[in-house]
Every structure is written in structure tokens, then in C-alpha cells.
């Protein structure tokens, strides 16, 4: 895996980005800007499931409408994130917070596999004014906690400067 990371950061695109004047800072700013857009759609969907906001609209209506913006936002966040990783792939690979972030992304994927079929894909079946089952609230709360963890781990990456203190797993 380390050799793959080294190969990636030696590719022409990553080298050009790394050697550019303000490439890293601009990409990082774009990454965080897209996180704000994407994060708000995640937060609004889950807060609606929890019944706190935005009230007054059927839960399926809000969650379904946010699906496309969420996907576009994720695509933008992931693209910037991949380029940021590629620019310093070796350094990121050895960064303990980056590894935590990857683990949390895997948790998000597991969350989607577990909760999408019984919760997110069946929201239209629940009446607008009926309370949502506890499972839906659990899914929403868990999602919010994991995404907050991803934000924290993402920020933590910047606190570890090379040479990294972690060792290969």
C-alpha cells in the first residue's frame, strides 16, 4: 500500500499540483467549502429524521430532495480530498488521523448498507405526521456522530507534521 501511495504522489498531475505555488492551500480551501455544502445536506437530512429540523415538511420530501445535492457535494469533496491525498500520499498514509478518517469512511459505508434499505429507502411509506421509528433516529444520530468524527479526524491530520510518529500497521 505504501508503494502505491508513493507511486501516486510521483505521478505527473500530483507532482505538478505539489510544486504549484498555492495549489495545496487552494485545494484545501475548496475541500472545506464543499464540506460545508455537503455537511449541511447531511445535517439537514439527519436532523429532520431526528424530528428537530426542518419541521413542517414530510421527512421523505426533505431527504429525497437532498439526495442529489448530497451526491454532488460528496463528489466535489471526494475529488478535492483525493487530490490533496495524492499530493502528499506518503505523508498521509503514515498519518494516524488519516487512518482514523479512512476507518470512519468505512463506518459511513457500513451505515449506508445497514440503514439505507430499512430506513432511508422507506421514508415515503411513513405518514407525514406520524413519529418515525426509533431505528430511524438511531441511524440519524449515528450518522451525525460519525460525520463529526470525520471532521475532527480531518482537522487532526494537519496536527501531525513529518516525520510522522506513527508506524506502519
Amino acid at each position, binding site marked *: 500500500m505504501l508503494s502505491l501511495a508513493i507511486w501516486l504522489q510521483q505521478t505527473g498531475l500530483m507532482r505538478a499540483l505539489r510544486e504549484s505555488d*498555492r495549489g495545496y492551500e487552494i485545494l484545501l*480551501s475548496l475541500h472545506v*467549502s464543499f464540506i*460545508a455544502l455537503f455537511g*449541511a445536506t447531511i445535517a*439537514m437530512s439527519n*436532523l429532520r429524521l431526528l424530528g428537530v*429540523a426542518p419541521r*413542517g415538511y414530510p421527512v421523505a420530501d426533505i431527504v429525497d430532495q*437532498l439526495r442529489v445535492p448530497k451526491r454532488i457535494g460528496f463528489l466535489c469533496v471526494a475529488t478535492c480530498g483525493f487530490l490533496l491525498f495524492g499530493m502528499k500520499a506518503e505523508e498521509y498514509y503514515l498519518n494516524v488521523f488519516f487512518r482514523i478518517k479512512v476507518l470512519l469512511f468505512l463506518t459511513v459505508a457500513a451505515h449506508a448498507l445497514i440503514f439505507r434499505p430499512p430506513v432511508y429507502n422507506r421514508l415515503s411509506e411513513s405518514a407525514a405526521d406520524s413519529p418515525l421509528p426509533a431505528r430511524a433516529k438511531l441511524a440519524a444520530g449515528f450518522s451525525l456522530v460519525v460525520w463529526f468524527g470525520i471532521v475532527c479526524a480531518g482537522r487532526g491530520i494537519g496536527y501531525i507534521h513529518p516525520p510522522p510518529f506513527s508506524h506502519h500497521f
Partner: protein
Amino acid sequence: MQIANLLNSSELTFPILECFHIAGFIIAIGTTAIVDFRILGYGLLGQTPSQLMKSTRFWTLGGLLVAIFTGLGLYSSDPDTYYLNLSFLFKIACLILAIILNYTIHGKVAKADSTSGGAKVVACISLALWGAVIFGGIFIAFVQGGL
């Protein structure tokens, strides 16, 4: 008499505060952007801009307050460095403008459910200002020296 700042006495306090600072900004800027994109004709088209603003304003204000208060805490850890950092000053100028816009013209435009050319310009200015706040914040760590 010197007063010890809690942020400077613990290695963990600053990063933890920073995480809440970022989370606050994500909520504040993201919810404002949802309204902006609706004015521009994208996103939650099943709701009007005024309905969206009404639904999100509590979260926008809450996120903003969290971001501002944690930001004051972060600033207090090393005020001289921040005060002299051009990127920090740029961020604060854009933040003040964005907040003023949000609670004046932007609010009026959203309340009126206007999607005219003028309303779209206001939405674009709002997005640009909040984006500039993020860029300013990120660049603080990369801009050496300053004034």
C-alpha cells in the same frame, strides 16, 4: 499579573475547540448556502426560499454563534499572531460583511421569495463571501508574517 490561557496550558484544548469551530461554520455556511442555491434555482425546489430560511435560520444562527465563540477562544490563544496575519484580517472582514448581508438584504430577498436577477446576484455575493471566509481561514496557517 499574567493570566494563564487554558488553551495554552493543554495540548488538546486548541484542536478540540477548532473541531467545534469548523463544525459550527459547516452548519452556518451550509444552511445559508442551501437558501442561496434555492434562490438560484437549485436544490430543495419543493420549498420556497422563505420556507427554507425559516426552517434553517435557527441552525444558521446556532452554527454561527458556535463558530464565533470558539473562534474568539482560538484567537485568544495567540492574539498578536492572528491580529497581524493578513489572511485572518481578510477572513474577519468577509465574515462581518457576510453576517451583515445575511441579516439584511439576503434575508429580505429570501423572505420575498424572489428569484429575480437581483436576488440571484445577492445569492451569489452571499456564497462568494462565505466562501471567502473559508479561504481566509485556511490561508491563516499558510500566510507567514503579515502587517
